[in-house]
């Protein structure tokens, strides 16, 4: 029976498989040839998704990913700086979405103030990488800004600051029930933003609404790394690290404890799971990712002010997680890419197109209708639509189903083998 079934499955999937291969193989070179074409850019992104979903051996996928992200994207980026910038921004949000996904998706804690940790990391670097720190640290001790060589250390500082902020915020509030926790984290997020806005007196620490600038770019052995391509590789390496860490945590006893808490707190306690400790761990892990990314963001922007860390940012990241699929790392990545491409590409193109139409007198479209201004509406629609029609997201979390199935099969084979030997 089996021999009959398997070939038909193969023939059924053969045509899409060839299509997928063709897409994956051609998309990259096409993008290299047409670095200015939005269509080529989208095709390239889609080909990455297809590569991820294809049923080919993992090493092959890795080779494909290395070629696409390690060679094609940077070489196109050197031709078209705009896409480079888009992809770096996408990267920052990918990391944030994966981080928030630990809190919201894995542990089921709705954190509406996630951006506060991002802000903590960003300000941690910005204050010392501008002359700002001279306001409260005597020049005799140290001079500011610190050089860009310190950037690498500050990545760690951002991680620690994020984690500490996470624990400090989490400790009092993580006993609260889910919906209250959501509102309280929202409150904390806003408090952090208001404090950043007003901490220019009595001692000027954050420079208030005026923000901090110029922030030192990273440097390596005295060489400035301020080109987009440098940020690209910095962001890419951090994302890879974050994804690996998130996936490992999820597959471990800690990840299972988070899942248990998400499913049923009461039953989780009867399994001996210490709720507060595990929730703090989730909070701190997610927050530390945001802290690291905050440092990168500050360095890349060279200017930050409190308005970059508004409630809307938190909701934007939440929309990415919900769109991609709560609890799914791949989903968080895809959610972030989709939302940002929509924001930075599709809406912008549409705005420009409508603008051109108005300018040519074909249509008269008031400037108030500029689609690029309606991010909130888009986040809102994403959230509502996903909740109602597809709460599990584009790529639902699959909890290592395949791996576990294989292991169960091994175990059974081992057992049955053993029973054959022993007639009893």
């Amino acid at each position, binding site marked *: 029976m089996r021999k009959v079934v398997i070939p038909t499955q193969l023939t059924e999937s053969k045509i899409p498989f060839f299509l997928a291969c063709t897409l994956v193989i051609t998309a990259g070179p096409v993008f290299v040839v047409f670095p200015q074409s939005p269509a080529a850019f989208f095709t390239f992104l889609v080909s990455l998704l297809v590569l991820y979903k294809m049923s080919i051996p993992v090493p092959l996928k890795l080779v494909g990913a290395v070629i696409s992200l390690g060679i094609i994207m940077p070489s196109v980026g050197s031709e078209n700086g705009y896409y480079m910038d888009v992809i770096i921004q996408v990267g920052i949000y990918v990391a944030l979405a994966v981080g928030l996904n630990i809190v919201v998706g894995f542990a089921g804690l709705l954190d509406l103030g996630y951006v506060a940790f991002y802000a903590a990391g960003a300000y941690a670097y910005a204050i010392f990488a501008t002359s700002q720190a001279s306001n409260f640290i005597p020049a005799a001790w140290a001079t500011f800004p610190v050089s860009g060589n310190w950037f690498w250390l500050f990545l760690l500082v951002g991680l620690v600051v994020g984690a500490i902020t996470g624990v400090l915020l989490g400790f009092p509030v993580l006993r609260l029930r889910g919906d209250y926790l959501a509102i309280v984290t929202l409150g904390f997020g806003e408090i952090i933003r208001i404090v950043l806005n007003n901490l220019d007196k009595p001692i000027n620490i954050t420079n208030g609404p005026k923000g901090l600038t110029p922030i030192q770019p990273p440097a390596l052995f005295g060489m400035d790394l301020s080109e987009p391509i440098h940020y690209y590789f910095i962001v890419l390496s951090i994302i890879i690290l974050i994804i690996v860490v998130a996936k490992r945590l999820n597959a471990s006893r*800690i990840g299972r404890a988070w899942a248990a808490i998400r499913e049923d707190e009461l039953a989780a306690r009867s399994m001996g799971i210490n709720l507060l400790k595990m929730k703090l761990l989730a909070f701190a892990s997610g927050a530390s990712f945001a802290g690291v990314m905050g440092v990168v963001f500050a360095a890349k922007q060279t200017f930050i002010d409190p308005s970059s860390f508004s409630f809307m940012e938190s909701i934007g990241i939440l929309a990415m997680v919900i769109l991609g699929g709560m609890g799914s790392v791949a989903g968080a990545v895809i959610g972030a890419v989709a939302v940002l491409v929509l924001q930075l590409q599709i809406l912008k193109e549409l705005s420009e197109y409508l603008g051109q139409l108005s300018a040519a007198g074909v249509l008269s479209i008031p400037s108030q209708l500029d689609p690029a201004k309606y991010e909130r509406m888009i986040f809102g629609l994403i959230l509502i639509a996903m909740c109602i029609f597809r709460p599990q997201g584009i790529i639902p979390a699959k909890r290592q189903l395949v791996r576990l199935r294989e292991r169960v099969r091994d175990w059974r084979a081992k057992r049955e083998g053993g029973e054959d030997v022993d007639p009893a």
Partner: protein
Amino acid sequence: MTLLKATKVTKRFGGLIAVQEVDFEIEAGQIVSMIGPNGAGKTTFFNLLSGYYTPDEGSIVFDGRDVTKALPEKSAACGIARTFQNIRLFPGLMVAENILVGMHLHLRSGFTGIIFNTRHVRQEEERALDEALDILEYVGLGGKETELARNLPYGDQRRLEIARALALKPKLLLLDEPTAGMNPKESDDMKKLILRLRDERQITILLIEHDMKVVMGLSDRITVINYGVKLAEGTPDEIRSNVDVIKAYLGEEAV
């Protein structure tokens, strides 16, 4: 050997006294049933033993340790595992994962070890999964390891909840109405499973049960609770002929 000793345990909710000065002991290796009408305070007593409630008065000593004020996670760590009257699985997790969650306390992998995916962590995971699959096989859920818990039929969900509790390697297992809602066949299977737990795994079992056939067939001892007060205790035969119990169950005129 006395495994658990509760002395004069009282629990009040506002003006209501749910459990009043109950003295209760359980010997290691026994199956003890707790019976009584609905609302008599049996589940409240379970919640007191498993740390969900803290007694207002009295003390609970388990395995030589004072667990009167222990929280649920602490009492689980001491070796008390339980099931719930309304099954509380992790419905969105796979059957095998439910068991693995139950093994949480026995796994030692730390945060850094997990992040670096050390050999120790990988080996521990392998062993844990093997053990989880063994437990599932033992309770008769072999072959359903990768199904989602919520998709299991009712009887299997009850089994899974017990299997999950077994993963804690408990000394005392509290079963809150294990055969509720089961047909006679399922109920009989459950009875056999409970006996095997005691005989093969040396687990002491305390159960709340309404089905008298199950209670009488399983129990070494029976405790009767009514209106939060202990009414009687003894062997099944003693309870069967106890005048107070008959009154409580069947009314005055039945005596």
